C-alpha cells in the first residue's frame, strides 16, 4: 500500500568521513509544485471574493458584515462540531468552511434574521458536507444546500418582499430587486392591471444596465455588482483556482436562451440584462465552480455550465421564483456523476484495450 516517505530509511556511515545524511526512499515524482495546495486554492477563492465582499459592504454596510461574518463563524463552528462527532481530525485550516460561509452569506438578503444565517450554515456543513464524508466527498454544493433549505423553510423571510424596506437608510433597499420587479411587471401586464404604455415607462428605467453592472440595485449581498463579480471571477479563472469552462458554459447558454426568449417575446428584457441581473454571474464564477461538485474533464465542465445557464433562464421565465441559481446548481450537481461518465476524455492514442 502507499506509504509516506519515511517508510524506509538507510543510514550508512564511513569511518573517516563525516556521518552520511539519512536517505529516504519514496515513489516518483520527487518534485511537486509546492506553491499550489488546497489551502492556497481556498485562499485564492477568498481573494477572488474580495471585490464582491467590498461592494456588499459598500452597498449594504453593516448588514453585509454581520451576515457574512455570522455565516463564516457558524460554518467553522459547525465543521468543528461535525468532524469531532465523526471522530476525524479537525481540518479547519484548509479554508473550505470559510469559503462555504462566505458564499452562503453573500447569497442571503441583507434583512435575513440571524437565525436563518445560523441554520443555513449548520445545514450547509452538516447536510451538505459532513453527511457525505467531509471535504471532497459531497455531491451537492454545500452553500446551496444550506441556501435552498432556508429558502424553502423560511419562505417569507427570504421571499421577494424581504429584500425591500421602504424605511431603510440604505436607498437601494427601498426598491424591489430588478428581477422581482420584472416578474411583477410581467404578471401585471398579463393580468391587465397596467397598460403597455405604463409598462414601457417602468421597463425603460428598469432596463438601465449600468446600475446593474455597478451594483446600485437591490438584491442578495453578493449578486448586485456584476463588475465586482467579473473582476474576482476572472482573477480566479486566470489563476486556475476556478475552471474557466464552467462560467463560459453558464454565460453562453444563459445568453443564448435569454436572447431567444427575448426575441420570442417571452421576456421583455434583453440577454445582456439577464446576464448582469440577479446572481447569474455570481453563481457562474463562484458557486458553480466549486471543484468538488463539478465534473472532472474540460468537456464535462463546459456541459455542466451550459446546463446551469439554461436552467437559470428557464427558472426565471417559467417558475414562480424570480431567481433560481441555487436550484439550477443543485440540479446539475446531481447530474455530475453522469456527466463524468459521459465525458471521459479520449486518451492520446485511443482507448486502452480492456482486460477481463
Amino acid at each position, binding site marked *: *500500500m*502507499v506509504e*509516506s*516517505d*519515511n517508510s*524506509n530509511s*538507510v543510514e*550508512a556511515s564511513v569511518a573517516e*568521513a563525516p556521518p*552520511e*545524511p*539519512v*536517505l*529516504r*526512499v*519514496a*515513489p*516518483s*515524482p*520527487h*518534485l*511537486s*509544485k*509546492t506553491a*499550489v*495546495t*488546497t489551502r*492556497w*486554492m481556498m485562499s485564492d477563492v477568498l481573494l477572488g471574493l474580495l471585490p464582491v465582499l467590498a461592494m456588499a459592504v459598500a452597498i449594504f454596510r453593516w448588514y453585509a458584515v454581520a451576515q457574512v461574518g455570522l455565516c463564516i463563524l457558524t460554518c467553522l463552528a459547525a465543521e468543528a462540531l461535525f468532524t469531532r462527532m465523526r471522530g476525524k481530525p479537525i*481540518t479547519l485550516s*484548509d479554508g473550505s468552511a470559510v469559503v462555504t460561509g462566505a458564499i452562503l452569506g453573500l447569497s442571503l438578503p441583507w434583512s435575513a434574521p440571524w437565525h436563518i444565517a445560523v441554520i443555513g450554515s449548520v445545514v450547509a456543513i452538516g447536510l451538505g458536507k459532513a453527511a457525505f464524508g*467531509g*471535504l*471532497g*466527498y459531497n455531491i451537492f454544493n454545500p452553500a446551496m444546500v444550506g441556501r435552498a433549505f432556508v429558502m424553502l423553510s423560511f419562505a417569507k423571510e427570504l421571499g421577494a418582499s424581504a429584500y425591500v424596506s421602504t424605511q431603510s437608510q440604505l436607498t437601494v433597499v427601498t426598491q424591489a430587486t430588478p428581477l422581482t420587479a420584472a416578474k411583477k411587471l410581467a404578471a401585471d401586464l398579463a393580468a391587465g392591471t397596467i397598460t403597455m404604455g405604463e409598462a414601457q415607462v417602468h421597463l425603460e428605467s428598469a432596463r438601465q444596465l449600468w446600475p446593474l453592472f455597478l451594483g446600485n440595485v437591490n438584491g442578495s449581498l453578493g449578486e448586485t455588482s456584476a463588475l465586482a463579480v467579473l473582476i474576482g471571477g476572472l482573477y480566479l479563472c486566470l489563476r*486556475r483556482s476556478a*475552471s474557466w469552462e464552467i462560467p463560459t458554459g453558464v454565460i453562453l447558454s444563459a445568453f443564448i436562451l435569454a436572447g431567444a426568449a427575448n426575441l420570442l417575446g417571452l421576456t421583455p428584457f434583453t440577454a445582456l440584462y439577464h446576464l448582469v441581473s440577479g446572481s447569474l454571474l455570481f453563481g457562474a464564477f463562484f458557486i458553480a465552480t466549486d*471543484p*468538488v461538485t*463539478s*465534473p*472532472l*474533464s*474540460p468537456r464535462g*465542465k463546459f456541459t455542466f455550465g451550459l446546463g446551469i445557464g439554461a436552467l437559470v433562464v428557464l427558472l426565471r421565465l417559467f417558475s414562480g421564483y424570480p431567481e433560481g441559481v441555487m436550484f439550477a446548481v443543485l440540479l446539475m450537481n446531481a447530474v455530475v456523476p453522469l456527466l*463524468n461518465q459521459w465525458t*471521459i*476524455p*479520449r*486518451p*492520446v*492514442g*485511443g*482507448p*486502452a*484495450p*480492456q*482486460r*477481463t
Partner: protein
Amino acid sequence: MTSTATGRGTFARGVHPPERKHLADQAPIEVLPTPPEVRIALLQHLGAPCEPILKPRTEVALGDVVGQAKGFVCAPVHASIAGTTGRNSVATLPNGRHVAVVPIKAAKQQPLSGQALFDDILGGEWPTDGLDQYQPQTIADAVRDAGIVGLGGAAFPTHVKLTRNPEKPIQTLLINACECEPYLTSDYALMMESPAPIITGALLAQRATGVHEVIICLEDNKLDAAERLRQAARGTTVQIRILKTKYPQGGEKQLTVAVLGKEVPTGGLPLDVGAVVLNVGTAAAVARAVVRGKPLTHRIVTVSGRGVEHPKNLLVPIGASYRTLVEYCGGLTADAARLVAGGPMMGFTIGSLEVPVTKGASGLTVLTADEVRKAEETTCLRCGRCVDVCPLNLVATKIAMASKANDMDLAQRYHITACMECGCCAYVCPAGIPLVQLIRLGKVRLPKG
C-alpha cells in the same frame, strides 16, 4: 518525397518543472578514474536476463563478454574494466529488482584511462559517408553483439528496433535528444563535446532500418547543442528539429505527436506509426559498435542536484557503484535527502550508494530536503488539475481512487493501462495525493490477461 515531420513542434498539456540544468550543463565530461570494483548486472535491459558464462577468478579484458544474450529480446553484457571476476552475487537495482551481478575487481594496470579512454570511446574521426558498405543485418548484429540497449532509460535492446519487420515498414528515425527531465545534462554534454558519433550512429541506424528521414529532436533549451549537431551533420541528410521545452517532451509518444503529428496507438509502439525512436547516446554507441567494433562498456552519467557538492557529467564504466560517483563529485551535502537514479520526475530512489550503475542510468539526482515533494496528503478536491496536465489525456484522480478502492473495472474504463507514469499529475496535485503510486498499485491489481 515530402517530409513526414509535419508535427507542430509540441504536444498538448504537460508541465514545466524547474529545469535546474545550470548546475551541471557547464561541466565538461570527466572520465571517472577506474573504480576498484565494478558489478555488471546480468539484467539491465527490458527482456530476458543474460546468462553468466565466466567462472569466478577469471581474468577479463575491457570489453570481454561476461553475460551471454538469451533469446531475441536480450543484449549481452561486457566487462567495463580489465580485472578478475569474483563470485556472482545479487544486487538490488533502483527499480527494486534483485538481479544477479558479476563483480570484477580492477586490475592494477588498465589499458585505457583518462583522456585516452575518452578518445577511444567518443573521440577521433567518425565517418559520415561510405556507410553503405555495412549491410543492414551486419549493423543489427554488431549492435546486438555490442550489448547496446536504449540509453535513454528504458534500456530496450536496440538491435530489435533496428531489425526490419516486413509487416511494419518505417519511414522516419527520430533521434531523441530532448532530455526533458530536470537536472539531467548527460545527452547535452555528449552533443556539445562529441556530436560526430551521433551523426554516424544515426546514419548507420538509417542504413539498418531503411528509413527515408532521420530527424534529431531537441528542446529549445539546448540551442547551442543543436548548432553543434548541425555542423557535424553538414553534408548529410540528417535533419535537426527544435521542439518547445516542456516535460515530458522526451517521451516517445509525445515525440511522435510533436514531430510527426501522429499518435502512437495505446499499447502500441512508434513502429505502428512508421517511426523508430533512438536516444542520442544510443546512436553514439551504435557508431562505436559498427565502425570500431567495440561493445557498450561506458556511458555518460550526470551527477547533479543541490545535494551533491560538485555536480558533474562523468564518463563511467558500467557497474561502478553510485558511491564512487558521489565521492568523485565531492560527496553529499549535509542537507541531501534523496538519491534518485534518473531524473526527479520519473527516477527511482536508491536506498544505498552501493547500487551499481546500469546501462539505462542517465543520471544521479541528489535532492535536498526542502525541494523534495512532501508526503502530506489531503482529500481529492476533484479540481481537475491532473486532467489538465496529463500528456495522454487521462483522468489521473479517477484511476488513482479506483485503484485505491480496488475497483479495477472503473480504473479500466478510465484507461489505466495507457498511463506512462510520467508524474505530471502528482506534480501538480494541490492535495498532495501520490497519484502515480496509486496508479502503479492499480496496474498490479489488474486481472492478468
